């Protein structure tokens, strides 16, 4: 085929640039400037897809985002993209396209069997069947699922990239048709920062599809000149191939720019698509209108198209969707399309007009050209399975509810239909704007804007070129003025759109009678919803707009009802005997057209960018020494260090033993550190911890527990008094940001009389914990500070120089071992770590990870907030009564701890558990039961929070939160596991060095 349906001249395609592509394996040619749809039509391809439910043959209906049928699987392999509208695919060399939802092919499709049984499967049929036997649904569902869906997802990761830009502007103009161009020009002239976005490759909107003239030029040329003018304005940004898809609160709009989709793979550079997030002071919506199909019998045959779309193909692409057309309309605009089509070489067999006496400039023009007008009539049937071959026409009865008289057949290969125009109010409606029903136009138009936006042109129902230009200019000037920019409103350019421009003289025509039972009159082409389905929904009382939409699935396809919504509402209104506004309309949801997941995600995915990766200064060293990392919040922490041939358990055991027998070091840099200063710093600390800090002397450290005001444990850590009015608070790794925010909130909002300042110094100071009997000896080699027990007792700290690095030495220990923690500025930490490793060689110094740290602290019964607590645990539950001050005044959590439920003595309380079999390690999370063999539900009385094999104890150890546990020491309890019951003795939760001699030693 060699573009048999291409005119030899006219249109905005470049006949000098041939473009090869394939459709369903067939090699075809088009021209630069084509869409896939226009190229297919030029090549005489009419059958392009199968419908969702009945698998009926379908052709191209529209010319833009409204297209319901021509959904294409575009590209192959990793580049494949399902459900792409042929009407919006820019043709490029080497483009590969395939039809969808048909097997083995679009010409012969096995799924079309659904069409034969379609009588039995109306809307909602699935709610009424597949219920027997009870388990049957999942059986039937398998078949339904595989039959449903449209295109195929890629099976490989996307090789292309996406990016985002956040921008602001004074005026955002959405839509680059005549109204939008006039608005941008008027706003831009004031010096305001303007963004003009249009979804097409070229600006001009309706001008590209018409033969209108502006200022003595072809309308499309005028559009090009305007774009040139705008390019000369430094504050104006012009974005083509950019669809504004959503309108959010506070004038925040999102647009998708298709940067590369129109290029052959080899010519793509940079991101595939770019998401623009625009905060606009003022918005001008010049989003145009979308033509409405007519709902008549067999209106889904390939070759039944929107009249305006045919006009577009002829005028813009020089492509003829057929050679002989019947026009079916209820308004004047289709006459314009008929005249243009006729001039473009399509014979107009007849114009079938439901109006009894159509008149007006365009009607006269058509008559003058000798086009037959069949007035007061409708199409009652369309023949031709894979392409229209003839239509049947009959006269409407007086009241329009039925047809009468003889049927007349008219041969044709194309039907051009127009049921009027729906303003593209999607964004307007998303912004919260209210819609009003315009009876003359039989559609919804904007009424009251909710945000700082204006509408111009066809979106307002102003369909003439003159009105579009005038409203555009006015809206652009006014928007700029409201954004703070004064300027003269430019004169509206002179224009000529021919006689009768913008006049519809529409007569509402919804469910078109055909005098036959069971004839399918399609409303939603993609989802195969017919007028009878609306009637069924009404009959069964799914009559409210949302019920009808959901029950019939009207408007829920990929076109989101752009052509079906108003028809559906009106047909339902007719059935209910009310006006359309009483039925109302469904809410317009983002997005106007579907948005690629990749564009919404941008660059923020993958191992580095999904979430910041936080690494300590020693991270690289850890990596080189076999560290097996775990994620703790955003941090990467060594879980253990694997030596060659070692299992994780062996490594952990080795590290745990080393800490108790010689010396081991831990990278503790991730623990949160907050520097608190000010005359009231102490008061602040005293109010947020449950225990008393008033007695803490400079140079001393104290462990503290923090509760929320309900008395539940929130975080814990050691706080050191650095100076008279200065403290260093440490927090858990994951809790650091929360604690800082917590302090700030109380300081700023509630305790405004306190003068204290909190600064996160987590990443300023790196920290190394040194644990084990040789820790003092090792550290002494690297510092002049006297580390003896007398000079440097437990729970104190001193400034010191370690390995020549000035820092702080803390005599604290989370391992329960003799130990120190050294903090130095982060940039010196790796040097210190290396110095310790070198000096420690003679003690077989061992780096240890988080798991060894957990085992060590569990041997001592030290809790981990978030592991041994869960947001329902009080300090009393932890057996830490000693940490709740009875002396000091109020503190956060004090009153919460006195509520009836927190005072109960049968709460879950922390205990130790020693299994009868010392080698049995109870799984963490296992539950304790008083009657493990009872029928389910088996009663539970607590759960194991921490459980390890302790190489130092030579047996397993566990901690549990157990109902009334504090009073049950010595009891044996049962822990029912999947295949056995483990028995364990309740102990105090401390398993090693109960007296703390090592700690203080």
């Amino acid at each position, binding site marked *: 085929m060699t573009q048999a349906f291409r005119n030899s001249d006219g249109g905005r395609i470049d006949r000098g640039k041939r473009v090869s592509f394939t459709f369903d394996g067939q090699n075809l040619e088009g021209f630069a400037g084509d869409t896939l749809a226009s190229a297919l039509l030029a090549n005489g391809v009419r059958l392009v897809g199968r419908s969702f439910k009945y698998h009926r043959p379908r052709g191209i209906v529209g010319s833009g985002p409204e297209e319901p049928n021509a959904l294409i699987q575009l590209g192959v392999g990793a580049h494949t993209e399902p459900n792409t509208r042929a009407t919006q695919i820019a043709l490029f060399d080497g483009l590969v396209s395939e039809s969808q939802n048909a097997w083995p092919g679009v010409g012969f499709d096995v799924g079309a069997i659904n069409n034969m049984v379609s009588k039995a499967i109306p809307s909602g049929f699935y709610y009424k069947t597949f219920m027997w036997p009870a388990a049957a649904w999942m059986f039937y569902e398998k078949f339904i699922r595989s039959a449903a869906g449209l295109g195929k*997802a890629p099976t490989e990761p996307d090789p292309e990239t996406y990016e985002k830009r956040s921008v602001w502007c004074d005026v955002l103009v959405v839509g680059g048709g005549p109204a939008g161009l006039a608005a941008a020009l008027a706003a831009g002239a004031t010096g305001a920062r303007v963004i003009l976005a249009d979804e097409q490759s070229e600006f001009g909107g309706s001008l590209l599809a018409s033969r209108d003239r502006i200022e003595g030029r072809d309308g499309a040329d005028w559009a090009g000149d305007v774009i040139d003018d705008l390019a000369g304005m430094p504050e104006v940004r012009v974005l083509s191939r950019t669809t504004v898809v959503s309108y959010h609160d506070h004038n925040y709009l999102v647009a998708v720019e298709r940067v590369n989709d129109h290029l052959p793979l080899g010519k793509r550079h940079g991101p595939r698509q770019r998401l623009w997030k625009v905060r606009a002071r003022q918005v001008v919506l010049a989003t145009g209108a979308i033509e409405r199909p007519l709902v008549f019998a067999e209106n889904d045959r390939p070759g039944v198209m929107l009249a305006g779309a045919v006009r577009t193909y002829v005028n813009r692409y020089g492509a003829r969707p057929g050679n002989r057309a019947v026009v079916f309309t209820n308004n004047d605009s289709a006459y314009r399309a008929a005249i243009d089509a006729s001039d473009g070489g399509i014979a107009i067999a007849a114009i079938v007009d439901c109006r009894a006496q159509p008149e007006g400039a365009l009607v006269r023009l058509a008559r003058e050209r000798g086009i037959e007008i069949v007035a007061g009539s409708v199409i009652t049937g369309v023949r031709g399975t894979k392409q229209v071959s003839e239509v049947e026409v009959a006269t409407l009865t007086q009241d329009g509810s039925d047809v009468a008289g003889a049927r007349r057949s008219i041969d044709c290969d194309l039907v051009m239909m127009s049921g009027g125009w729906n303003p593209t109010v999607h964004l307007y409606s998303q912004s919260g704007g209210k819609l009003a029903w315009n009876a003359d136009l039989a559609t919804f138009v904007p009424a009251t804007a909710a945000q700082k936006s204006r509408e111009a042109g066809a979106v307002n129902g102003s369909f003439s070129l003159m009105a579009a230009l005038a409203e555009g200019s006015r809206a652009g000037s006014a928007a700029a003025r409201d954004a703070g920019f004064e300027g003269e409103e430019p004169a509206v350019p002179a224009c000529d759109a021919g006689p009768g421009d913008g006049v519809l003289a529409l007569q509402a025509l919804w469910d078109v009678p055909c005098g036959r039972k069971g004839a399918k009159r399609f409303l939603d082409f993609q989802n195969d919803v017919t007028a009878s389905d609306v009637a069924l929904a009404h009959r069964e009382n799914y009559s409210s707009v949302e019920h009808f939409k959901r029950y019939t699935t009207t408007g829920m396809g990929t076109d989101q009802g752009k052509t079906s919504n108003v028809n559906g509402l009106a047909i339902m209104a007719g059935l209910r005997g009310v006006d359309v506004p009483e039925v109302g309309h469904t809410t317009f949801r983002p997005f106007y057209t579907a948005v690629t997941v990749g564009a919404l995600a941008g660059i*923020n995915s993958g191992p580095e960018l*999904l979430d910041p990766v936080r690494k300590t200064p020693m991270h690289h060293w850890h990596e080189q020494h076999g560290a097996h990392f775990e994620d703790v919040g955003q941090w990467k922490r060594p879980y253990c260090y694997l030596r060659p041939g070692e299992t994780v358990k062996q490594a952990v055991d080795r590290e745990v033993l080393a800490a108790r027998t010689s010396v081991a070091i831990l990278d503790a840099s991730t623990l949160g550190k907050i520097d608190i200063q000010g005359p009231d710093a102490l008061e602040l600390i005293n109010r947020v911890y449950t225990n008393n800090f008033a007695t803490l002397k400079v140079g001393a450290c104290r462990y503290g527990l923090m509760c929320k005001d309900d008395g539940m444990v929130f975080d814990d850590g050691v706080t050191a008094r650095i100076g008279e009015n200065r403290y260093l608070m440490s927090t858990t790794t994951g809790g650091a940001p929360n604690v800082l925010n917590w302090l700030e909130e109380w300081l700023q909002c509630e305790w405004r009389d306190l003068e204290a300042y909190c600064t996160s110094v987590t990443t300023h100071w790196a920290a190394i914990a040194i644990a084990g009997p040789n820790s003092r000896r090792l550290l002494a080699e690297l510092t002049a500070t006297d580390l003896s027990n007398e000079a440097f007792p437990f729970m104190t700290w001193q400034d010191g120089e370690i390995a020549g690095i000035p820092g702080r030495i803390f005599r604290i220990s989370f391992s329960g071992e003799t130990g120190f923690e050294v903090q130095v500025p982060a940039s010196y930490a790796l040097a210190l770590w290396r110095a310790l490793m070198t000096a420690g060689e003679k003690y077989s110094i061992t780096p240890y990870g988080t798991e060894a740290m957990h085992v060590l602290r569990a041997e001592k019964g030290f809790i981990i907030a978030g592991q041994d607590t869960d947001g329902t645990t009080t300090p009393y539950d932890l057996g830490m009564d000693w940490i709740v001050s009875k002396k000091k005044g109020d503190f956060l959590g004090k009153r919460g701890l006195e509520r009836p439920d927190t005072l109960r003595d049968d709460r879950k309380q922390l205990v130790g558990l020693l299994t009868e079999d010392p080698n049995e390690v109870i799984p963490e999370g296992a539950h304790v039961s008083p009657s493990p063999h009872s029928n389910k539900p088996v009663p539970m009385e607590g*759960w194991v929070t921490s459980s390890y094999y302790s190489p130092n104890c030579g047996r397993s150890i566990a901690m549990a939160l157990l109902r009334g546990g504090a009073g049950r020491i010595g009891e044996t309890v049962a822990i029912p596991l999947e295949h056995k019951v483990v028995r364990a003795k309740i102990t105090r939760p401390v398993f090693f060095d109960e007296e703390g001699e090592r700690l203080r030693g």
Partner: protein
Amino acid sequence: MAKMKYSIFSLLRQARDYHRGWPKAWRSPEPKPSYDVIIIGGGGHGLATAYYLAKEHGITNVAVLEKGWLGGGNTGRNTTIVRSNYLWDESAHLYEHSLKLFEGLSQDLNYNVMFSQRGVINLAHNEHDLKELSRRGHACRLNGIDYEMISAEQIKQIAPIINISKNIRYPVLGGSIQRRAGNARHDAVAWGYARRADEFGIDIIQNCEVTGIDIENGRVTGVQTTRGPIKARKIGAVPAGHATVVGNMAGLTLPVESHPLQAMVSEPIKPVLDTVIMSNTVHVYISQSDKGELVLGAGIDGFNSYAQRGSLDVIEHQLEALCDLYPIVKRLRIMRTWGGIVDTCPDASPIVSKTPVEGFYMNCGWGTGGFKATPGSGWVFAHTIAQDRPHRLNEAFDLKRFETGFLIDEHGAAAVAH
């Protein structure tokens, strides 16, 4: 008021006459002057309550008052996940009761609610997640709720599109699966309950907004509505999204805050996923509908709102993580996003309770997880209203717990809030 039975036979019989013989699924009656019980809120929970009042307690002089269209709140806006793998006994027992009702619901209602037990997988991305899932698993096992811990490789077998490579920001370390869990068709649940409740003679009155609650001597006597006053001996309020508004009418202050929760669907594609996968850590919830759309749940916005729309950044974050976990989605397109209003309680557990006002009962605070509870919630609420005391299954979900501190803290315990 016996309805035509739905079956393949009635469908074929009706087909012969172009489906002109189907009766209304429910009537649209005018409100009567008085009822024994008024249910405020015609969502799934309210309609289920009405149905079980009739079926289990023989109370049929009941009206369900809905300010919009039935099933139009969160019932029709959620991601349709049904599961019962909760941590705390109180929650587990209630949700399990609900899941069991779901298992026979299509037959009970003679309406296909398309309950599909294709399994729900929870992912673990770090050691903490693994511990939490394990704790939940042990509790579920003892509570008689099916639950298995599974490895990343097993997850990959069930859902081949998942990326279990170690080279992503938060790799999948493993997870759990509840095989009896799955999806149901949300609208069908509301419509099925409505149809059967109507069959019992219960009046479902749409476009009837309650504007006031009449109380005399501490006892309810009726409601004021946009369609006039209606008397009632008892009133059960199930106004998801508007709990505070309705509660205030009865003089109650509630521990509830309303937030937007968003969800979205992709364009339909051929089947790629036959289970439900949830990840709390990276906030991704995904399943594929029978139509072929990927159904994605996002998180809630941090601020109070009664607008059924949320912020874009919530969606962006969710999709960022989605691309990591399911790399094939990147070229697919999001077709539609929407929001609902969820009423959240401080402990992420609902209130199904008597109130200080005699004859006034409150069912609210289901947060992000109400759909799965629909049958169970209706069942226990009907009991609470009919007997004027809670059922054993909802005793703990009392309003008083916020005074005593006896919270059922699913949130605090890091159990799944979705």
